[in-house]
């Protein structure tokens, strides 16, 4: 009789200990302290993430997380480093690589556009399919332009000034894409006239996880 009772008590104790242990499992990435976050202008990356988690056969739980990725040197663009002369029109950076991307994720970056003219100048900024591809990359899915937000598609930039244009890539959760794909962000001086006009492009390579 006593043995049975001891067995029962032991079973109950083990179950309770296991239950308490399950509660204590850490399950989230810790957000970096607010003071560690750089201003967005310097090229920060934000990744809101939503993921549905299946817990039990009949129970589905949706988990939504916002993960702040702190700036690291390779994430920061420094337009003041050796730019072309002020009287030349330029864009920067020439290439952006987004890695570990996935449906439902969001990536943000700034494209710097410099007006080298001595007069105020209108520009047109758009995204488009690439003229050529990096090795192993594919052309973007047909609907990729719906996933890209350009904060200002027709900025008017003061003479010999630079404007940072906010660009967001936000892929729907139910969207599909190749493992590696590319799109270009096009910048054109809208005041150009004549037989030949120039277009400057920034290449954006997206590697899916």
């Amino acid at each position, binding site marked *: 009789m006593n043995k049975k009772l001891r067995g029962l008590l032991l079973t109950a104790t083990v179950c309770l200990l296991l239950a308490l242990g399950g509660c204590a499992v850490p399950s989230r990435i810790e957000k970096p302290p607010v003071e560690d976050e750089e201003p967005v202008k310097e090229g920060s*990356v934000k990744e809101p993430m939503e993921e549905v988690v299946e817990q039990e056969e009949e129970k589905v739980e949706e988990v939504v997380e916002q993960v702040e990725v702190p700036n690291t040197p390779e994430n920061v663009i*420094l337009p003041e480093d050796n730019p072309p002369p002020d009287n030349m029109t330029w864009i920067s950076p020439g290439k952006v690589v987004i890695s570990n991307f996935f449906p439902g*994720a969001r990536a943000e970056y700034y494209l710097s556009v410099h007006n080298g003219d001595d007069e105020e100048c209108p520009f047109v900024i758009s995204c488009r399919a690439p003229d050529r591809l990096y090795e192993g990359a594919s052309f973007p899915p047909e609907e990729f332009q719906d996933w890209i937000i350009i904060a200002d598609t027709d900025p008017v930039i003061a003479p010999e000034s630079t404007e940072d244009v906010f660009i967001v890539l936000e892929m729907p959760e139910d969207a599909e894409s190749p493992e590696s794909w590319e799109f270009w962000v096009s910048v054109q001086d809208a005041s150009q006239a*004549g*037989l*030949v006009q*120039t277009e400057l492009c920034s290449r954006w390579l997206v590697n899916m996880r």
Partner: protein
Amino acid sequence: MRRFRKLLWGMAPLAAIVTLLISNGGVALADTTATVTINATPTFISIALNNTSYDFSTVAADEDEETPDGYFGVTNNSTVTTNTTIVSNGWQDTDGEAPDSPWTWDTPGEDQGQMKASDGDGAFDVTIDDSTPAELTSGTSAETDWVFEVQIDAPTSFTHGEPQGTTLTLTCAEE
């Protein structure tokens, strides 16, 4: 004592279920995080032209007319190796009056012509398309200026004398 034993027997399966639910939930939640990374190097893309226009004047049927050697000069202030493509937006009837009679952009035919380009060697071996960009230069080193020329392959015959024009877009991007 009997009541206590019954109570314990009843609690054991319940505790086991609670354990299972909580521990499974913990494992699943731990897998929901990921990091998207963005990398960019501080490169600059910059080109400018010394000439943007050229008047071919009157073009004879079935003749090729071209700009002078090195007519279009490109100042390249890009800080990285670049490639350049060229594309046309097709022929436009430029007098702005009806009827609107643009030529067809294609190999020479009746009211049908195209343009070609060369990267400074006068070879005109780059056929300019009206939809797909053609590569004009590749692997151009940083801060290296270059020149190019263009040529009209005029129609073999004309059914009208409406003036024609086009816009050529020169696209520069990192290699």
